[in-house]
């Protein structure tokens, strides 16, 4: 089964492609005990800041700590919800406006567990992973992203 019990890499260089998401979906066709998938996709937004308009976000992370923390979160969510699968992908480096920077993908026999687990994962990833977004502006300035 796919309940890996070792830290696995969640980081990908640059934007995550829709095709990568499709491939991840297709990989679950052989798991015939799955009844529902819940997927959250984060997309870089062209926010207007006083200093200019966002054209990209440049992500950095304290990778070793982030992977340890992601593993801890993963274990906690697997313990809390009856999931078949869980996948997390987060971008590092530059991701342009309109591109995907985060994929959280949960699968379970019944929809409720997949949905609740996905929601909770997204909240915990944003609050607990040592990752930082530098919002690059069209004015050649930048501002540091703030999660609310």
């Amino acid at each position: 089964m796919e309940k890996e019990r070792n830290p696995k890499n969640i980081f990908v260089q640059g934007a995550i492609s829709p095709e990568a998401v499709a491939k991840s979906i297709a990989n679950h066709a052989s798991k015939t005990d799955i009844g529902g998938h819940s997927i959250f996709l984060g997309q870089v937004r062209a926010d207007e800041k006083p200093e200019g308009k966002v054209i990209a976000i440049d992500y950095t992370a304290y990778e070793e700590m982030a992977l340890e923390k992601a593993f801890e979160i993963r274990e906690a969510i697997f313990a809390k919800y009856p999931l078949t699968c869980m996948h997390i992908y987060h971008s590092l480096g530059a991701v342009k406006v309109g591109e995907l920077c985060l994929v959280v993908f949960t699968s379970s026999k019944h929809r409720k567990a997949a949905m609740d687990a996905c929601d909770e994962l997204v909240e915990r990833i944003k609050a607990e992973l040592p990752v930082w977004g530098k919002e690059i502006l069209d004015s050649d300035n930048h501002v540091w992203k703030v999660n609310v």
Partner: protein
Amino acid sequence: MPNTIHIKAFGMVAERIGATDLELAHCLDSEALLETLRAKFPELTTTKFSLAINKKLISGNQEIPENAEIALLPPFSGG
């Protein structure tokens, strides 16, 4: 260097102090380290950040083990 602390800085903290890696003389605990850092980088007094020791966030004052890896972490903004 047994009497050294290895420090990693990230995000806005790294930008403000102009470095992502630092070596400092060993400090006994996190309070002492923060004092040293603020003396060396006055800009940190107005920057919000947390400390991690060996990849664990700390709260309150905590002892710093030999050869610890310290990280200066501004508020997370992944996703």
